[in-house]
Structure formats: C-alpha cells, structure tokens
C-alpha cells in the first residue's frame, strides 16, 4: 500500500510504495534507496502522491489524458496566475505614467489650484516683436517671463496688453469699465461698520538698490470707504532703474474683497538715479465682506508690496529711453 506518512524527520523518503516503484521503474533497484530531498521538493512530491492516491482510489486510470491534464493544469494554472499578476503590475506602471499628462490636461482645463491659463503660440509670436522693441535684454526678458509665470498676475495686467479697458480681457472675471465705474459711484460705507486696520508692508527684491517704504504704517477704513495710502520709493544707485511691483493681501480670503481703484503695481516704474517718488494706492474694501461669515472677526488686513527689478539702463541709452517713456505715458 502506499504509505504517505513515511517521510522521516530528516526529510528522507523511503521509496517503498508500489506506485512510486512503478513510476520510478526506470531506475534500478539499487537506486531505489534513501534520497535526500529539499523541503519544497518533498512537499511537491507528497502533493503528487496525494493526488495520485485519490485518483487511484476513485478508479480513474493512471497516465491517461485526464491525469496528465490535471498534472499539467497545475503548471498551467500557475502560469496563468503569474501572467495575470505580471499584467496587473505592468498596468499599474502604465497608469502611473499616463497620470502625469492627464493631470496636466485636467489642470489646464479647470484651472484647479491656481493654474494660470496658457497663451497660445500665435499670440506669443505676435507679442515677440513688441518684446524685442521694448529693449529688454534676453536675460531680463527670461527673468520677466519667469516672474510673470510665478506670480499670479492676471493676464489683462501684463504690460503690453491693452491697458485700462478690462472689457477686452480674456476672462469673464473682471468687470467691464462701465460696471466697475457704476459700482464705485454707488459705493457706500457700511453703516456703523467696524474699522478694519489695513497695515502696509513693503519688500524690495535683492538686486534692486531702491528703498521702498510705506509712508504710513496703517490706515483704518470702514468697508465701502475709498481710502488713499502712500509708498515712498528712492533710487539709491547712480543708474536709472526700472522696477515692477506685485502685491499680496493677507489674510488671503480678504483678497476677494480688497479692490484697488488705482495703484502702481504690475507696471514698470522707472526711477532716475537718486530720485524719490511718492506712489499712491487708492483702494476700498468691498462692503460684501460683512456678509462673509469666515471674515467676521477680521480686524487686521495686511497689504504687502514687493518691488522687483526688470531693467537697468546704461548711461548711453538714457536719452532714447526717455523719449520712449514720454510717448508711452
């Protein structure tokens, strides 16, 4: 009889069973001795013996197509499973690679997370001439483009695009001139409104040899009231330098309600050497801020301006640039 339990603790198996003797009949009796197998081999062997035992018990013929099929089907099934697993891994890798351009497309269409809109190539090429004419060096041009890309300047405000009339702007976000003017004319301060302290903060880019400070530390404004504030900029170097300013409002949610009527940001300002100039900001806080529950307890708002250098003029070019400035102003 087949004795399945003949495996000794040392994993040596005595080939005493008749089945095994028949299966390994090609080997001589001398070789039918104790053979040392590894654990996995012993396990595989034991499994096969078990299958065969039950097959014989149920009367199925040995070495028929069925048994060989079932023997091979284990291998087949293993191969199948392995190929499924490999396909899953490759599929996941492919999805990872595909996700990058897909996410980019998603961000471009929806503007999720503050993605800026892209300019299409023909418009960019049209502006190329204007860019070259503006006389900026290639390096400063590249820096300028990078600056614009990094900051959140709305596309209407880029220098070179149509100034003043926001009705031809790219998005529907800005009011047309008439709407804005009408809103401003009908603007009323909130009755018994709380005074919001607008604090001013200024930073100068590292390269820029200007001193740029607010002329007053803060101004207390009621929402709906138009207010004026000043910054003073001094060019401390001996060359005429052009700078551009960007601004930020903190807390960020107040930025929705902080409207500027006129200021000095996003456009190049050129200071002659040693010149001091006052830059005003004319702004108001939208009365709708009173309806915002998240901003109910906001009493301090910080408006911070940062000045960056865009170009430095050499002495020889001064006359030409001044002529251009006069024409542009």
């Amino acid at each position, binding site marked *: 009889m087949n004795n399945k339990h003949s495996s000794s603790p040392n994993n040596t198996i005595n080939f005493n069973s008749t089945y095994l003797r028949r299966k390994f009949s090609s080997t001589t009796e001398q070789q039918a001795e104790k053979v040392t197998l590894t654990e996995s081999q012993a396990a595989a062997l034991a499994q096969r013996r078990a299958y065969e035992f039950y097959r014989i018990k149920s009367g199925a013929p040995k070495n028929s197509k069925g048994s060989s099929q079932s023997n091979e089907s284990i291998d087949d099934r293993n191969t199948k499973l392995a190929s499924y697993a490999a396909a899953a891994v490759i599929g996941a890798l492919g999805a990872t690679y595909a996700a990058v351009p897909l996410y980019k497309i998603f961000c471009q269409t929806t503007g999720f*997370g*503050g993605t800026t809109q892209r300019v299409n190539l023909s418009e960019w090429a049209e502006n190329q001439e204007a860019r070259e004419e503006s006389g900026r060096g290639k390096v400063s041009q590249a820096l300028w483009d990078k600056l614009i890309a*990094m*900051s*959140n300047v*709305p596309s209407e*405000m880029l220098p070179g695009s149509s*100034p*003043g009339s*926001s009705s031809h702007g790219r998005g529907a976000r*800005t*009011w047309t*001139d008439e709407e804005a*003017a009408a809103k*401003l*004319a009908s*603007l009323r*301060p909130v*009755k*018994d*409104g*709380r*005074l919001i*302290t607008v604090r001013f903060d200024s930073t100068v880019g590292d390269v820029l040899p200007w001193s740029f400070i607010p*002329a*007053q*530390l803060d*101004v*207390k404004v*009621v929402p*709906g*009231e*138009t*207010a*004026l504030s*000043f910054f003073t900029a001094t060019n401390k170097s001996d060359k005429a330098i052009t700078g551009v300013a*960007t601004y*930020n*409002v*903190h807390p*960020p949610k107040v*930025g*929705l309600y902080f*409207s*500027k*009527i*006129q*200021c*000095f940001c*996003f*456009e190049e300002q*050129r*200071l*002659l050497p040693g010149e001091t*100039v*006052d830059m*005003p900001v*004319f702004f108001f806080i939208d009365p709708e801020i009173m309806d915002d*529950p998240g901003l109910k307890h906001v*009493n301090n708002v910080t408006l911070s301006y940062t000045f960056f250098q865009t170009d430095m003029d050499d002495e020889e070019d001064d006359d030409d640039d001044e002529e251009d400035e006069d024409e542009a102003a």
Partner: protein
Amino acid sequence: MNFSSAKQTVKPPQRGIFPLDHDAECKPFKEKYLSCLKEGGDKHHLCRDFSKDYLQCRMDRNLMASEDLDRLGFSKEATVEKAVEYDKSKEKGGYVAGKHIDGRMKWWFQR
C-alpha cells in the same frame, strides 16, 4: 513671493496705474494728509478731505484721469457717520477659545 497655500486672488486695479509724480508736485497735499492721519489715529474718514485734495491736485496736473470725485467715493452720501473700532477685547481677554462665538454660523447652502 507669497508661498501661502490658500488661493491668492490678484485683481487688476479698476482705473489702471497712477503715473509717477516725478516732480513731487502734489507732495504738500500728501504731507497734509499724512499729518492728519497721524493726529486722527490713522482713521481715514477723519481725513477724507485731505485725500480728496490730493486726488484733485493729481487731476489738475494731469497725473490722473480727470473724473468727478463724487463717483470715486467722495460724495456726500458716502460719508462715514459712525465707525466702530475694534476694542482689542480678544487681546485683553487672553485669546480664550470660543469666546468670540456669538451666533450660529450658516453653511453655504443655508444662506
């Protein structure tokens, strides 16, 4: 650059850009406005006339697009009558959590 993660809204100014006052023509008006602010505790509605004068100066010297000042928020109806100043209760009270809640807040779909 501001690296805050909250989405920053940056809007263009409504009337564009102030031309630079290179010759400091309106400087005296500015000085008057600033000294008024200093005396009045930085409250703008007390110094409204001075800011009106400054803008008028700019318009006269062609440093600003001429416009009716009433439409710029300096009309009589746009005078600030009473303004409540924040009494620094939070700072004085020691920033106790929950003390400032005085009403139920509404969700966006309840408004």
